């Protein structure tokens, strides 16, 4: 399935996993100088998790660094039952949410909490479809359009989408990281995916992917 395929893409090779476990044990024994080597493969994802919540590069970078320092300070509490990357992302999400809570007014937070998770969302764009080749992401303008579409989502949909589909947390981990129910994660994830699909379909009509080698007369949606 799609989710499994994505996980397979991100799962470390067995030798990498063994190396990571070895690094974890060394850092847990006090070799802090090896911590960067341990977290370097995940720094991009840590940053993305922070940015998805804070929507500000500077804040996201600051939170990413704070999260890494917190992870280092608590490395002895890490148990191998969880993936190390998941543990890192959860720390980052907690840090980012705390930062956002501090910066938000009570009034704004109350307003956000009143928004419901209406599961009914009707797709608006229908067209013949085909798979968009991943080579499309080599083009900066495509990446920017995708990022822009993501940024336009309501934060509660964006956060769930980023954690589940970009960070590869599972549904339960996403729920725990954000402090919401599994049902809410599923509902928000559905909305996020369908809204992004509509946004990108409109982008297709606007020519975002015009230079991609699609077959004549077909569209990716």
């Amino acid at each position: 399935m799609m989710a499994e395929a994505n996980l397979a893409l991100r799962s470390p090779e067995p030798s990498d996993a063994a190396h990571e476990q070895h690094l974890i044990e060394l850092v847990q024994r006090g070799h802090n100088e090896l911590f960067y080597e341990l977290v370097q493969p995940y720094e991009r994802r840590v940053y993305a998790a922070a940015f998805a919540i804070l929507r500000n590069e500077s804040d996201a970078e600051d939170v990413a660094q704070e999260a890494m320092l917190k992870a280092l300070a608590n490395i002895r509490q890490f148990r191998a039952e969880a993936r190390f990357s998941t543990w890192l992302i959860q720390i980052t999400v907690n840090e980012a949410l705390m930062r956002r809570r501090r910066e938000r007014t009570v009034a704004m937070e109350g307003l956000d909490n009143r928004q419901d998770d209406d599961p009914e969302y009707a797709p608006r764009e229908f067209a013949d479809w085909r798979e968009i080749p991943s080579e499309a992401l080599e083009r900066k303008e495509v990446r920017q359009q995708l990022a822009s579409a993501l940024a336009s989502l309501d934060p509660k949909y964006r956060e769930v989408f980023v954690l589940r589909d970009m960070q590869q947390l599972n549904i339960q981990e996403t729920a725990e990281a954000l402090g919401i129910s599994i049902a809410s994660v599923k509902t928000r994830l559905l909305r996020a995916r369908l809204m992004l699909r509509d946004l990108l379909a409109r982008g297709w009509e606007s020519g975002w992917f015009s230079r991609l080698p699609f077959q004549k007369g077909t569209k990716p949606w």
Partner: protein
Amino acid sequence: MVNRETNSDEIKCQQVWREISNYLEDDVDASLRLAMDQHFRTCVRCRSVLEGTRNVVRLYSDERMIEMPAGFSVRMKRRLQQNARAGHSRWSSWYAWMVPLAALLLITGGIRVANSLTVTHPMKTAHGQPAQEIPPDMPVVVTTGAKLFHASGCPFIHNKQTERILTAREAMREGYVPCLRCMRKYLNTTIVGKGAGSGTDNPDLYANQDDDDLDAGGGGQ
């Protein structure tokens, strides 16, 4: 919106859209999956939604979608290294003053322990003699509630059922003083005696001992 109801098993497009995210997560039961599969074969619009959503998930899960600010990695590494050095420095400064402190504590503790090993309890009677001449390793007899220590077999031992055998050194540490009768040969009777000749049963010597230890009957109990 498409709603073909050709038979009772067919599901509506709205239901497909509601479940499409769970379908991609492989989180629908077998009968629903079968119904959706059948629906996708006949409904072009829902197939468009399905494949468009798949595109969304696949494209956004690509790591190229996460763009970090320039220099992010360098700053992250520097911050972690600074923290590691600061941690080491904190440890070093802590260590720097802890070592002499620990040494001081060890020395102080050692002195106290040494003192405790050599401490002499106050003599159980102010009238006792220091007994400097008594061989320190000589076995002597003490009893509970008494103030004198005796040579084994001394007829002036009281409360014999509580007898303990100690060395003279240990007995003196516990504050016992020598029996003037059985320990006479070790005592400087000239100190105690008031002009009496040494080695004699000077009545003043016995007068310096407490009544409890002086067996009026001349025999042990």
